[in-house]
């Protein structure tokens, strides 16, 4: 088991390292950001001087080497625009992103699991067809569009809820539902098929024959057994929710990491982008790491592989 953990842990490090490397080189493709920070009438010598000061005049591999050496020590440098600690700026934003992601996850579970169970139980009825149909639609709708529609209806027309900003429960409702839409759709479909799988098992048929009441049949035997694969999906989706909330955060002006990353990319504030990617990669990799270990703990066959 220890061996397994160590191996998986090394994988985490490799994932984070690769993510940083790829992003480092990708953002450099957009060119040298120095001029974006200077006034348009800055003379050429001045641009050169700043370029030197910021280190963008050096060969790319040297910049990369320095970046990695500092990054290993947890130093991602300072924001090019404001001069503040880049990692600090990212960490400041984490609570807002966590808040949104966890709320979206909880909402998705509360809505999706009962719907999935009912769909499976009432398989091939109108209810099931509508449910499955809607969840396909939910997965297909781009969330920036869905977000704007919600803003239009609930903020601009009905004026029930604030359109944007962060801080209170009322500010959370629209972005949480926007973000949850995709997960709800996935969870419904997954719960339904996992339930169907179990409902067709011999032991369910046997207990049915033995006269077990329907409610305990569904809740006690079927749901419990189909929960295991659902938990894996939840772990994966949590990673997606934490890292992938960029669009939702921008649409709703939610002050989380996604907004910061989006803004910093537009501003070419490389240190913040890299610090943000670092944090998201770690969260993603660690959640998977924990899921792997839990899985291995539950199912010893995986350890052997």
């Amino acid at each position, binding site marked *: 088991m220890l061996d397994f953990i160590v191996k998986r842990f090394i994988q985490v490090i490799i994932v984070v390292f690769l993510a940083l490397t790829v992003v480092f080189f990708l953002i450099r493709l957009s060119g040298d950001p120095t001029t974006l920070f200077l006034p348009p009438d800055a003379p050429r010598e001045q641009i050169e001087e*700043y370029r030197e000061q910021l280190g963008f005049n050096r060969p790319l591999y040297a910049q990369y080497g320095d970046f990695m050496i500092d990054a290993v020590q947890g130093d991602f440098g300072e924001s090019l625009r404001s001069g503040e600690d880049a990692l600090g700026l990212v960490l400041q934003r984490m609570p807002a992103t966590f808040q949104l992601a966890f709320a979206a996850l909880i909402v998705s579970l509360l809505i999706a699991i009962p719907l999935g169970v009912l769909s499976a139980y009432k398989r091939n009825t109108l209810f099931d067809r509508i449910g499955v149909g809607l969840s396909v639609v939910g997965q297909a709708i781009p969330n920036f569009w869905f977000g704007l529609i919600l803003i239009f209806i609930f903020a601009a027309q009905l004026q029930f809820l604030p359109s944007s900003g962060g801080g209170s429960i009322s500010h959370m409702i629209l972005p949480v539902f926007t973000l949850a839409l995709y997960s709800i759709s996935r969870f419904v479909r997954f719960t339904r098929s996992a339930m169907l799988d179990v409902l067709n098992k011999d032991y369910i048929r046997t207990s049915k024959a033995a006269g077990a009441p329907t409610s305990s049949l569904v809740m006690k035997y079927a749901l419990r057994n189909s929960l295991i694969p659902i938990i894996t999906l939840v772990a994966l989706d949590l990673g997606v929710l934490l890292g992938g909330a960029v669009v939702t955060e921008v649409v709703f002006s939610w002050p989380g990491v996604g907004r910061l990353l989006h803004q910093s990319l537009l501003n070419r504030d490389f240190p913040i982008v890299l610090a943000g990617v670092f944090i998201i990669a770690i969260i993603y990799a660690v959640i998977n790491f924990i899921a792997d270990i839990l899985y291995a703990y539950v199912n010893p066959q995986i350890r052997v592989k």
Partner: protein
Amino acid sequence: MLKKSLLAVLMLLFLAACTEGTDVESQNGGADESGNTDGEQQESIVIGFEGDAATMMANHDVNYTTDTLIRNIYDPLIDRDGQTGEFVPVLAEEWENIDETTWYFKLKEGVEFHNGAEFNAESVKYSIDYILDESNGSYYRSRWVDVEEVVVVSDYEVEIHTSRPFPSMIERITEDLLIMEPGYVEEVGVDTASNEPIGTGPYTFVEWSRDNHLKLEAFDDYWQGEPSIKNAEFRIIPEFSARMSAFMGGEVHLFKNIPVDSVEEIGEDRVGEVPSSRINYLALSNLVDGPLEDVNVRKAINHAINADELLEAVLNDYGTRITGPLSELNSNYVETEDYAYDPDLAVELIEEAGYTPEDLTLTLDTPSGRYPMDSHIAQAIASQLQSIGINVEVQVNEWGNHLEGVQNRETGDMFILGWGPAFEPQSTIENLFTEDAPYSSFYDEELEEKIFETNALFDEDARFEGYAELQHDLVEQAAWVPLWQQADLYAINESLNFSPRVDEKINVFEISWE
């Protein structure tokens, strides 16, 4: 089992609700302020803004968003009149150009910072020294390098000494310099001062939640009198549709930059318009190899493009035509002759240059979304040129790449660019029509000499003569197809008194409720 996990989930929800408790209260307060209770509405305003400041430190980040927000907290020495663009004394009462390298300023007495400290000559020296000190990393330093020293003459008098003649000093001071409190920055350090600013401005800092909001409160002891609006909030909403919804829903009372095609939706009576000092133009570059090195081809393109039609059809007439390199808002502006729309003459000129229109394949670089309808304008220009047979390829660039292309002379033959806020000819002409300037697209040896000669002149009449001649020369050389001054479009709540400024700033002190 299921009951237990449900219970756990509910507990989690409850906990989540509790931990936000403090925020909820402050936010509700905010919502009330912006809400519909009439009494309170007179006291406060919520302004929707597209981007957040990078820092609350003055004199650091050269950026419209940062500058607009913090100008409500800090005062400048000199400001501009919001409608005419003329210089207006603020913390400097008078100024004088003693000789080519010395400028004298007499400062206002009896002005206090938000922390009670007194404004004096030391504050001015400190603020300029902050820019000049390399270790501070201020991006303003690039245009202040010629300043050698700031000398405190007395408590309320300073002199600025420059290493070279610096005729645009007043312009620099007006546009860049905001006054910081030396004692405060020294005491708390740059990091804290960058997050909790102290100035002499009409509003004191309350709270800055990055990418969320900046809350300000009226400074009761403001030297120009108590601001009429007590609480101001800049709410950062990057997405236009969300900004508009917030305005429609009454959450936001004012925002800037309505796309021309959304004016109708907001309702023309709620839209304020001002011709900006920012101009948009089509550069006909003679710095990249190609047929545009020939002046006749450049003239032909001027004759082949119908800018009035572009303005009407693409921008719904939101813009003010310009015919030369400067807008009317510039000092030393003169009216220049417009190239009439004349496709036949255009073909003639091209043939004179030894081509036929069909020979020409030109590339037009444009950013997308930086200026009103920029990429649409580019397409429309291309089709106008195509109608006389010139083949045009439009290349749409991401903004950073576009700038870099212009700088490295890696654009096509033509590119769209904007310039501003522009109020005086020196910066525009020197930066856009000389060989080495980063954003230039045009070079002519004789003209360049004339440009530098004129820039160094101090005598006002001679300066006017010089720039007048340059404006005519540049039009004669057909260095650009001058397009228009952008129209800045604001959505304004019906009962708000607000006149948009030509310099794009939003000074809450100048706003009031009816």
